[in-house]
């Protein structure tokens, strides 16, 4: 028996050693592999194909399974992170403070790129902190309202006006909502993401005072935002609850979630970003129109986007910087704009005639609306004294109670304000340097 086990051990060790070289992806001769932690989409594959074509000595590959910021942070600290990676939304500070995002302030001018002059002005918080630059946006986006022209035609309803109000959208949405004999909604008037930050932006509700030292989430504007977000669902019943959305079958092949439901005619209108357009193109029978999102006098659309950064510990820094250069170039920007993956990082390419009207997609006459909406967009606010995750936790918890009918919106926002302030004070108590900065009143 001993001899048998010894023989098995020897065979296993030998087999492992024999197979070890084959366990790694082969590196094509004369090429350097550059790894980009991002999501895997058809658009991403076209962007990669262009980069690899322009850089024959490099082989850009994506790592979609490790795209999550948490994984990027942990893997990079462990020394096995990607060469370049996406930083979604306002996660920049996490990557900068942890020393993972390479400071590109000196590098970008060497590449012939002035980020502050070229990139959409409102996007600065996504890639820069205190005049130090740490990346270039891969794409930027904001929200508008898509409507299904055919559904409007069937219902003999006029399309929404170019600058609609919420009252108008809700009135139309009610007419477009259809229920079956059992009372089950077969088509909703409107779909939108249950994201309180979108509505805060629309209503001009601020999260913090200018110096970031105090939260301001219990203002009348914030109350208006919460009421505006919940009323289409709970008052007017023209939009699904979160769980209704989850249980609505996706209609295959056109992205996921709301855009898929919109293509499947489960909704007549959907609030969504420009990248939905790319998915809608794969549904050739779909006839879509776009109008601006209604905004209050002080409101704005919310700027969304992801920034590409270079891993400061990457052993292939030069290759990674070539990829950054590629993202800043006209080729990438035009490709991005043509593929409707939001808009490219540089503003000037949306001034070109092909963006205003792309003859390849003659039905899409609404690109100027996207440009105008982008120019009106504002990024998420942030404070050095409390993380966005902590604010989300405080507000999200209270909004759950509003949904349950346990609390009214006003009381919930007051409680969220108190909880947020408590968290902020706890942060100050745990960090002497931060407390000093707070006392000095600097942001």
């Amino acid at each position, binding site marked *: 028996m*001993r001899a048998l*086990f*010894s023989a098995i*051990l020897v065979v296993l060790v030998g087999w492992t050693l024999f197979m070890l070289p084959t366990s790694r992806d082969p590196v094509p001769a004369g090429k350097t592999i550059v790894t980009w932690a991002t999501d895997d989409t058809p658009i991403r594959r076209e962007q990669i194909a262009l980069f690899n074509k322009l850089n024959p000595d490099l082989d850009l590959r994506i790592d979609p399974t490790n795209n999550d910021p*948490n994984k990027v*942070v*942990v893997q990079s*600290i462990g020394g096995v992170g990607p060469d370049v990676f996406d930083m979604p939304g306002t996660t920049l*500070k*996490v990557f900068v*403070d*942890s*020393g993972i995002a390479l400071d590109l302030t000196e590098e970008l001018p060497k590449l012939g790129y002035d980020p502050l002059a070229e990139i959409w002005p409102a996007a600065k918080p996504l890639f820069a902190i205190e005049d130090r630059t740490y990346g270039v946006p891969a794409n930027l986006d904001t929200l508008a309202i898509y409507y299904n022209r055919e559904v409007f035609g069937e219902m003999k309803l006029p399309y929404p006006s170019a600058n609609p109000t919420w009252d108008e959208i809700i009135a139309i949405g009610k007419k477009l909502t259809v229920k079956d004999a059992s009372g*089950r909604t077969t088509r909703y008037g409107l779909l939108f993401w249950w994201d309180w930050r979108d509505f805060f932006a629309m209503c001009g509700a601020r999260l913090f005072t200018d110096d970031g030292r105090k939260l301001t989430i219990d203002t009348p504007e914030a109350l208006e935002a919460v009421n505006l977000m919940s009323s289409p669902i709970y008052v007017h019943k023209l939009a699904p*609850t*979160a*769980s*209704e959305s*989850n*249980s609505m079958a996706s209609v295959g092949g056109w992205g996921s979630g709301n855009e898929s439901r919109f293509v499947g005619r489960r909704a007549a209108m959907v609030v969504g970003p420009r990248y939905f357009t790319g998915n809608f193109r794969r549904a050739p029978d779909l006839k879509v129109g776009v109008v601006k999102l209604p905004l209050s006098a002080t409101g704005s659309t919310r700027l969304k986007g992801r920034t590409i950064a270079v891993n400061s510990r990457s052993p292939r820094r030069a290759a990674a910087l070539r990829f950054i250069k590629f993202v800043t170039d006209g080729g990438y920007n035009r490709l991005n704009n043509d593929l409707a993956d939001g808009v490219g990082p540089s503003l000037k390419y949306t001034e070109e005639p092909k963006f205003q009207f792309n003859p390849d997609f003659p039905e899409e006459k609404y690109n100027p609306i996207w440009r105008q909406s982008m120019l009106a967009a504002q990024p998420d606010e942030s404070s050095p004294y409390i*993380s966005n*995750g*902590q604010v989300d936790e405080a507000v*999200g*918890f209270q909004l*759950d*109670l509003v*949904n*349950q009918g*346990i609390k009214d919106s006003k009381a919930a926002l007051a*409680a969220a304000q108190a909880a947020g302030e408590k968290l902020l004070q706890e942060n100050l108590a*745990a*960090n*002497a*340097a*931060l407390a000093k900065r707070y006392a000095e009143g600097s942001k």
Partner: protein
Amino acid sequence: MTAKNKKRAMRIATILGLAYLLPNLLGFLVFTAGPVIFSFGASLTNWNIMNSPPLEFVGFRNYQQVGQSSQFWTFFINTVYFMAFSPVGIVGSLVVALLLDSRLRGMTLFRTLLYLPSFTAGVAIMIMWKGLYNPDHGLINACLRGVFDLFSLPFQGPGWLQSTQNLMGLHPEKIAFAVKDIGLGAREALVFMGFWAGLGGGNMLLYLAALTNMPDELIEAASLDGAGPWAVFRHVKWPQLAPTTFFIVIMSVIGGFQGGVDSAQVMTGGGPAGTTTTLAYHIFRKSFVEYQFGYASAVAWVLFAIVFAFSGLLWKFGNKETNY
């Protein structure tokens, strides 16, 4: 064989034995013991990945904060709430094992069917249950509605995953009870799903194995003495199953305290209003969402202490009653 040769053979056998153990031992040291010791060290620091504030030794401050955190105690109650239902699951597994122990035709098929959820991907099961729990269009409320309609009763279905209500009337925001909070909500939804998934799972297999290994003479002797099925179960099978039950209870306590991450991540995000956030999910969020590794390590060690204390108590008071 001379004494010298014997000694030599013994030495070779020892070296070989250690060589066989070495891969496992190395794995244990590197991937289990090392991180455990490291996490204790981390729990005594303010370590977060962002280096803000700079890394420093803070002694037991994290542990003090854990004790003072109302969040921790809310999530502890959530965890205990989920565990409170585990005896029901254990009884269910026992009943199923007793049924499957009978010698009927087609029993292999029943055994396979009941074990099916155990080798189905957990995420797939959770997504399926998510659909079933939809308050308006889910199959569960549709069935309940059908029953109510049968008796012409008005139907207000449970909110399931959307609801903070629970059978004990726990308030979602503070540690208090209220009649209006009594109902079937997200906590119960996860409990029922866990009960369903566990019914034919590992516990059932353990009971089935114990029943199969039970000497037939004992049951035959009891039957000859006039014992009915209930008496046979109560006085013969149940005492014989005691060591298995003890093992299952210990494992359920340990697993219960460590559970809740998958379902929270896939089905509820820990909500609504934190009602399905367990201590294990709290640790996950503190580490990998908020990057507070020092604090999260402290919570993990407090959780370890709780599990250790509960297991110790069970061992002290349960072991001598169940092992012969």
